[in-house]
């Protein structure tokens, strides 16, 4: 399935400044896997060291958060759009 992945501004330097990239993939996880294989520098910003999507990285399929679908196993169809949407967090943290 040909799908488009929208890249947020802070990650565009790692994909040749493109706003989006296209892949053939059957699931959201497969599309993100292809993305981070082709653009390896992205991996550490999207995934933790043990391979889970970071808590402040939100992935939407079209307009739906994949946490409310089948997460990374969510099936894709031709023409779908995956968006990586940041949550912003921090704090003094003591």
């Amino acid at each position, binding site marked *: 399935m040909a799908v488009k992945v929208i890249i947020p*501004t802070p990650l565009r330097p790692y994909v040749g400044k493109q706003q989006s990239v296209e892949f053939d993939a059957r699931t959201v996880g497969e599309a993100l896997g292809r993305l981070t294989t082709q653009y390896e*520098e992205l991996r550490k910003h999207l995934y933790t060291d043990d391979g889970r999507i970071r808590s402040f990285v939100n992935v939407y399929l079209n307009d739906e*958060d994949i946490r409310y679908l089948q997460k990374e196993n969510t099936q894709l169809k031709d023409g779908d759009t995956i968006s990586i949407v940041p949550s*912003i*967090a*921090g704090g*003094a*943290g003591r």
Partner: protein
Amino acid sequence: MLYLSEPQKRQIEAHAAECYPQECCGALLGEEGESGREVREVFPLVNRREDSPRNRFAITADDFRAAEKAAQQAGLELIGWYHSHPDHPAQPSDYDREHAWPWYSYVIVAVKERKPAEMTAWRLADDRTRFQTEEIQAKLGASARRGGLGAGAARVH
């Protein structure tokens, strides 16, 4: 270099004082020039971290999208974020670093007993191991801007 006008700086400080002893947060809308980034609009947001707002802040994906939409409508970019450290130095914590994105400017304002104190700016290094200081400079208004971004700028004290 991050260009932040005195009124913008005061707006962030006022938000930080208003939210004390909790952390405040918001977006910085602006544009990137050859000599640095210029903040054109401060966009306050609600700290969504309900369980621990005194030492944590959270901006949800929905709030992120609202800030991004505001930037697009104004012909600007979402260039960074600000938050306060109540009764804590304006230094990024490990928690800040672990949750940071590259590229964005992160402004931190310390607040001591409700009074705004030091303000600093930071960017995450590409390898995520540390923050790098980003210098903040004040703008002197439209005449300075006509002379080019950064012309006539003065350091924020």
